[in-house]
């Protein structure tokens, strides 16, 4: 097969990849984007298989079948609450694939008797370093999300120094390999250091910071793919990798802003320190609580209700009950909207997926900046499973760990209702001022059960 076939296939694939992300800008065209991506992938794979240097197919076919056999059940069986875990795993797989190809390239050149140096080695070094460290870092992130690994930050004295030293050592080996052919132990050592560095990178990061970390690892995995493109002189890989890297980068910046983390913190992966909770003693200030019947009566007489969901709602699997409640209220002429904080879920956009799964139409889901100006006209802000993202302390208390974090202005609504199991503070361990306001009603109970009781009370007062 002549070269122009696969070259044309690659160019069209590149176009498909770009269109795929472009069409994701709206839910209306998004599925077309997936199709474009799939078509591009098909062209790229078929084009590659037809290249004349590919002589053996058996192993490749076996690998295809094995990959599909693992991938398909993962995609269909993962519950939506576990999408962050699946994403972390796919960063690990993608990065590992890139790193393995880098290693394979290296060993091929060694076997050919002309070890790589210079520019191609720069690409292989970057590809392997990013690839291997992202692999172990993603596995660690997966472990923290799945709570196999302790979610609290693991820190020790001199941690940053140890990490820096390790990284410097890896960098020195990398530069050495770029400058001249090296002894056989250098590349495997470099690989081991990269793998270890990935683990150490995630240790000090708390479970609550995982949205940022996942986005950052997404970016690293993309960068590894782009570096592979340089090593293989394959521009399709450069384009796809660059798109993925910039996507992960933007998402991590958005997550950072939403948690009021500085940008340098992201780049050096040194976040997590600020999270060491300054657990204030649970205050004994009085709160007002209410029953499901009271809550039902208030909700029924409201004109506009804004629900503020947090990850706690998803943990309690209360999103379906919440949709039922919004349907019942909607039938009685109450406008029910959902206000989504960027860090409401476990990864960027996670809460939107969870609510969409519960059949809540997406035009009811509003981003923080869009809905915040509306709160003074909102009759009831119903907070369910969220805590820090509605804490007014973030606005004015300079000593608070969450000071400066943008929040949803629930306190500006006429009435605030909070469904909560008990008065325990949230993951940042900070007392929430919102609970003690005169207009706040605490609804103590399990998120799913209590929502069910409100629905029952509503249908009783028909």
């Amino acid at each position, binding site marked *: 097969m002549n070269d122009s076939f696969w070259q044309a296939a690659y160019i069209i694939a590149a176009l498909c990849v770009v269109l795929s992300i472009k069409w994701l800008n709206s839910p209306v065209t998004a599925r077309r984007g997936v199709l474009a991506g799939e078509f591009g992938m098909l062209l790229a794979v078929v084009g590659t298989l037809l290249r004349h240097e590919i002589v053996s197919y058996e192993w*490749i076919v076996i690998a295809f079948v094995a990959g599909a056999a693992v991938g398909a059940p993962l995609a269909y069986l993962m519950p939506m609450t576990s*999408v962050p875990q699946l*994403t972390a795993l796919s960063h690990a797989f993608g990065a590992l*694939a890139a790193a393995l190809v880098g290693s394979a390239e290296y060993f091929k050149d060694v076997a050919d008797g002309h070890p790589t140096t210079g520019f191609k080695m720069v690409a292989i070094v970057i590809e392997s370093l990013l690839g291997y460290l992202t692999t172990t870092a993603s596995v660690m992130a997966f472990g923290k999300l799945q709570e196999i690994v302790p979610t609290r930050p693991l820190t020790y004295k001199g941690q940053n120094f140890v990490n820096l030293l390790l990284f410097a050592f890896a960098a020195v080996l990398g530069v050495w390999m770029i400058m001249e052919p090296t002894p056989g132990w250098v590349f495997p050592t470099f690989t081991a250091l990269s793998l270890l560095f990935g683990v150490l990178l995630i240790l000090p990061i708390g479970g609550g910071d995982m949205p940022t970390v996942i986005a950052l690892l997404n970016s690293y995995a993309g960068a590894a*793919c782009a570096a592979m493109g340089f090593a293989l002189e394959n521009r399709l890989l*450069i384009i796809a990798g660059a798109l993925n890297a910039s996507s992960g980068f933007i998402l991590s910046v958005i997550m950072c802003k939403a948690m009021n983390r500085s940008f340098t913190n992201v780049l050096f992966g040194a976040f997590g320190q600020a999270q060491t909770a300054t657990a204030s003693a649970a205050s004994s200030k009085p709160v007002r609580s209410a029953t499901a019947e009271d809550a039902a009566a208030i909700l029924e007489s409201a004109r506009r209700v804004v629900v503020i969901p947090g990850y706690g709602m998803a943990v309690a699997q209360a999103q379906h009950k919440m949709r039922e409640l919004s349907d019942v209220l909607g039938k009685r002429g109450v406008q029910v909207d959902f206000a989504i904080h960027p860090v409401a879920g476990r990864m960027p956009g996670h809460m939107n997926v969870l609510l969409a799964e519960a059949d809540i139409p997406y035009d009811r889901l509003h981003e923080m900046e869009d809905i915040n100006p509306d709160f003074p006209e909102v009759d009831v802000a119903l907070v369910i499973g969220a805590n820090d993202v509605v804490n007014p302390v973030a606005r004015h208390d300079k000593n608070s760990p969450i000071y400066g974090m943008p929040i949803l202005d629930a306190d500006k609504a006429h009435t605030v209702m909070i469904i909560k199991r008990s008065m325990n503070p949230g993951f940042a361990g900070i007392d929430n001022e919102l609970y003690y306001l005169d207009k706040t009603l605490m609804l103590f109970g399990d998120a799913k059960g209590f929502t069910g009781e409100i629905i029952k009370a509503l249908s009783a007062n028909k």
Partner: protein
Amino acid sequence: MSNEIEISLYVLVLAVPLGLELVRRVSPLLHTPLMSLTNAISAISVVGAILVAGNGGSPLLSKILGTIAVMFATINIVAGFLITDRMLKMFKKKETVSK
């Protein structure tokens, strides 16, 4: 600097701003599907893995590493596209939600 490298660098400096611009336009509503889709797309690295695994000139070690890479990339392609579509199917506008 060889011609090949120069072209690759041009591609990179064009692709990065294009990516930033495209992603900025993606609705925050779809950030999770965006991440799973870009994961699937960057698994186009399967191309590189195939080139190493199927190349007659590769030593055995490189073939093995390449084949494992093909498998992992394929997991990402299959799982990435399928779960993205599964999520996007759930996003419905008001009229289309069963009433």
